[in-house]
């Protein structure tokens, strides 16, 4: 240990490491009534890092070629030592990431932390959310199984309902009239290079914005701490007398991360086939559509919405409107009150929205 301390002293002397730790960690004070929901952002950082690492490992053996992709994935799953573990971590992790993103969004929604002055936190977060869906969609095609091939066909097809440019957009997206080898090339590039780079940049921006506005005070619990911001000059919301991030809140972050890992590894080890159907084990065949092709669970609500409207254009417009509404929520909902229990209409809308989403998802699953 004395050696470690001497190394630390040596570094500290040069870059003032202790000062940084004091400012950013032990001296970074959080509101006294902070709750567990604020740790979901850290959980997401861990999940994203794990996706990056397992993705890099998969790249060692995966071959992005329509004739070889399926074989290379089977090889990873069946022949390479622990290949199944790495692939399952990546596949299960992507689904968990979407689920935790939903929770993170819902918690910031519920506690009203999207409100002014945190519009940018919400906007950057919402963009990340859209990109995580895009990275999941593009990754889904890569195993080149019947499931990936036809789910991608169905998912890309819905954009053709957009008037005038829709059909060409779909062709451009696929690199041809139908999903085929050119689609694999562009989805691969998007999945491993383009989208991850943009997500990393946006996570950086998300955290930067968070740092500049300061973390919000939860709207319940100890009252009177939150000061309303008049909106005239820039103000960093600090929490004098609050609890330090290190060690106190770091421990909460760690417990949330541990709970997450327990759930995540439970799926990986005890329900590894949760995400796969029989069509995941058959190589893609462009001349044979399997019955009952469905998108992944988090797209089921969108999929069902498209199905219930008589015209695809109507279905897509409604979804675009709902998405835009949600993205711009901080600009639409401008009241100062953040406590959901003092905003019955807002609370009712959120609950109705969640129920609607669940309803559509279940309907989509069984339809």
């Amino acid at each position, binding site marked *: 240990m004395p050696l470690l301390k001497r190394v630390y002293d040596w570094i500290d002397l040069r870059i003032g490491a202790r000062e940084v730790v004091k400012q950013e960690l032990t001296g970074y004070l959080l509101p006294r009534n902070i709750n567990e929901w604020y740790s979901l952002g850290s959980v997401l950082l861990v999940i994203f890092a794990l996706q990056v690492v397992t993705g890099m*490992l998969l790249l*060692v053996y995966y071959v992005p070629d329509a004739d070889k992709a399926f074989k290379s994935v089977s090889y990873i799953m069946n022949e*390479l*030592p*622990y*290949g199944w*573990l*790495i692939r399952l971590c990546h596949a299960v992790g992507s689904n968990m990431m979407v689920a935790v993103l939903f929770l993170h969004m819902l918690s910031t929604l519920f506690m009203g932390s999207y409100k002014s002055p945190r519009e940018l936190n919400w906007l950057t977060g919402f963009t990340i959310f859209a990109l995580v869906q895009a990275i999941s969609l593009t990754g889904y095609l890569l195993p080149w199984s019947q499931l990936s091939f036809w789910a991608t066909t169905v998912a890309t097809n819905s954009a053709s309902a957009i008037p005038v440019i829709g059909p060409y957009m779909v062709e451009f997206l696929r690199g041809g009239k139908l999903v085929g080898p050119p689609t694999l090339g562009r989805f691969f590039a998007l999945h491993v290079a383009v989208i991850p780079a943009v997500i990393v940049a946006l996570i950086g921006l998300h955290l930067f914005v968070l740092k500049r506005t300061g973390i919000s005070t939860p709207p319940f619990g100890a009252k009177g701490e939150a000061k309303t911001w008049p909106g005239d000059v820039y103000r960093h919301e600090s929490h004098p007398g609050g609890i330090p991030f290190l060690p106190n809140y770091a421990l909460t972050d760690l417990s949330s991360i541990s709970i997450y890992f327990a759930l995540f590894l439970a799926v990986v080890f005890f329900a590894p086939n949760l995400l796969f159907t029989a069509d995941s084990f058959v190589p893609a065949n462009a001349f044979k559509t399997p019955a009952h092709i469905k998108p992944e669970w988090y797209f089921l609500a969108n999929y069902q919405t498209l199905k219930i409207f008589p015209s695809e254009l109507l279905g897509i417009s409604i979804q675009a409107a709902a998405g835009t509404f949600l993205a711009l929520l901080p600009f639409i909902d401008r009241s100062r009150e953040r406590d959901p229990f003092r905003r019955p209409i807002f609370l009712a809308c959120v609950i109705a929205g969640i129920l609607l989403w669940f309803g559509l998802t279940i309907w989509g699953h069984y339809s």
Partner: protein
Amino acid sequence: MENESRRKFLGVCAAGAAVVAAGGVAYPVFRYLAPKAGETGTEKVVFAETDVPEGEAKFFQYAGSSAVVVRTKAGQLIALSAVCTHLGCIVQWEKDQQDFLCPCHAGRYTPDGTVISGPPPKPLAKLPVAVAEGKITVG
């Protein structure tokens, strides 16, 4: 004091758990990335005697590496590793000169692997070779 030793005990437990977890991650990743055993195995390589006419050489994969069989003008059959003993390039057979040339730094070897000139410190490694019923077997 009571608190001190408790803190130390917990710290050791946490560090121990962290080391076990790190090992649990590192081992599968190492196994996943480790080259496959068996690809460096020593299966015999067999081909027809007519593949190697007098004064010519045949290159092939052997035991996960490159090897060569030459038949000298005198009719002698020799099997060698084709990996140059200098920095590991693959030697070429020079039919006119009847010797091996390493293109990397101009090392030269006789058909039986002895160094003629250039930087290679050692002769090319010899491999066991046998001829029976018109077939050449290396290994």
